[in-house]
């Protein structure tokens, strides 16, 4: 890929805890611009938690998170808004606003943050919906969409302002293989053509092989990153047996 690797997200000595329970214990890593960065790990190991930390929703127990060099946790007011404009987030549950149609959901950030005229906004919304394969469902309410459709709608909403970093929590869970592959294509195209950075939580191994530039794996037992690299390398060369098993979908023999 790129030779010059510009750091866009830097996580320094991050420790995350819910009350007294430590979920993630002192991890550090960097994400580079234009990279498709995958967070992997067993269910309940703290992937969503890590993602929510990276977007500054909660203050970490210790450590810092820098987005483009700015500390997202301590930033306030207009500084914080400036950082937030750089990121778009899709939550695991979609989190569409139930009282608005699909179209209004996606249009909302444009209305709030840009000076585009109304028909320009409409066009942008339709184009985003087209990209996630939801054109024709503009007037549906979120409750009238299937789970996978809600996810894709949430992706459209996350990327409507063309943020430089997109955080996606299990974007392809609940999608059929074809739709999931289309989503992969979209991610690759945005990363390669617009140099958008993706931080994605996913379990879909096929999709990981086709989109990932880099993968980190969290292990619930040690609460740390146990692997970091390209997925093919981790599958074939990792010295951690659990990591190799994960990629080969083998049943863990040593109990997990």
């Amino acid at each position, binding site marked *: 890929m790129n030779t010059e690797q510009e750091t866009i997200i830097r996580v320094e000595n991050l420790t995350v805890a819910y009350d007294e329970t430590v979920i993630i214990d002192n991890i550090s890593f960097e994400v580079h611009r234009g990279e498709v960065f995958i967070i992997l790990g067993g269910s309940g190991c703290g992937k969503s938690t890590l993602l929510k930390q990276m977007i500054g929703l909660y203050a970490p127990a210790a450590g810092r998170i820098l987005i483009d060099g700015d500390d997202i946790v301590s930033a306030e007011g207009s500084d914080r808004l400036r950082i937030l404009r750089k990121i778009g987030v899709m939550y695991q549950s979609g989190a569409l606003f139930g*009282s608005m149609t699909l179209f209004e959901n996606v249009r909302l950030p444009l209305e709030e*943050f840009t000076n*585009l*005229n109304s028909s*320009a906004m409409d066009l942008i919304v339709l*184009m985003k919906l087209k990209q996630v394969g939801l054109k024709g469902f503009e007037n549906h309410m979120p409750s009238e969409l299937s789970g996978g459709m809600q996810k894709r709608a949430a992706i459209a909403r996350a990327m409507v302002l063309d943020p430089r970093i997109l955080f996606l929590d299990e974007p392809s869970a609940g999608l059929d293989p074809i739709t999931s592959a289309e989503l992969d294509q979209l991610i690759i195209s945005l990363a390669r053509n617009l140099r958008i950075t993706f931080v994605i939580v996913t379990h879909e191994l096929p999709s990981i092989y086709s989109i990932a530039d880099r993968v980190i794996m969290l292990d619930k037992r040690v609460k740390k990153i146990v692997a970091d690299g390209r997925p093919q390398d981790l599958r074939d060369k990792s010295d951690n047996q659990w990591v190799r098993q994960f990629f080969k979908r083998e049943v863990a023999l040593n109990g997990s």
Partner: protein
Amino acid sequence: MVEATAVLNTVADKDGVLTIRIKGRLDSTSTGDIWQGAIEALERASSKKVVVDTSEIDYCDGAGISLLVEIQRRQKKRGSELEISGLHDEYRKLLDSFDPLEFEEYHPEKSRKTSLTEEVGRATFSVWDNIRSQIAFLGELVAALFLAARNPKVVRWKDAFLIAETAGVNAFPIVALISFLIGLIMAFQAAIPMSQFGAEIFVADLIALSTLRELGPLMTAIVMAGRTSSAFAAELGTMKVNEEMDALTTMGLDPVRFLVVTRVIATLFMMPLLTIFSNLLGIMGGSVVLLSMGYPLSAYVDRIILSADYVDLLGGLLKSLAFGLIVAGIGCSHGLRTRTGASAVGDSTTKAVVSGIIMIIVTDGIFSVVYFYIGI
């Protein structure tokens, strides 16, 4: 950081070609600045051919691509030629992934105009539908209650106790405050005209009868409709929205038995207690006025014992049982009928409180008529 700007130049060429030059950074913040200008330039163009020179665009994201799509769309519709020159390969790939003619202007679904007759018809039908489902629910509820009475083991008593605490015990302070103040205010208002006849002491009769027969049960019921009926509707509504209700049903657990019966029993149990308490506080409120007018407490109490008897008290308590059934039943039935979506829970809560209060007043009226005829 460099300030992100987009610049638009239009150069009208002599040979019937309009050149539009776009420079700088085209992102969701800056594209808005030139969008209108670009479209106007296109509209004004008399030339057959339009060239959009994009070679000096530093950065272009989805918003910028949309502008190019919009230009393509307009030119195609007019049937004139368009050339987008100098676009970076990456952006070109994105642009080519869209078919401009696919994006006709967006029209939100228009709410269909309905005639007055249709409106009236729909409204009538929905009232009828509402009544029908309330009656069906009442039937189910009574059946479930009978089952519970025949076999008390099926009732989840632990849940019922918890609900009795949150819905009943925790309502004591507000019931107390409101009843006391209403008693006080009523006594005060009545004492002024009565004192013109030197009949202040009869305020005690008024307070005793109106509190025991009407205000105690009624005020308690209205407080409970606002406090508990809404809570039931919101709880059950949220469960419905989260598909918890479906989960219960597929586990073979009847939501009415599992959730509603406990709530109804708890409310039925707490309502008379709250009402007795409300009666007491209302009478105490009235006493404050008479005491301040110089009557001894014993005179007030004597008048009350003389004027009201057990029938008044029991009549009020019987009503309070009916009100309890309404409060819990209507709250739960609206909760169970919650549709999907976030606003649905709010809808159910509103409906539960409004129809609860209406039903309470109507029932109160019916009781008054019945009591009148049987001479209570």
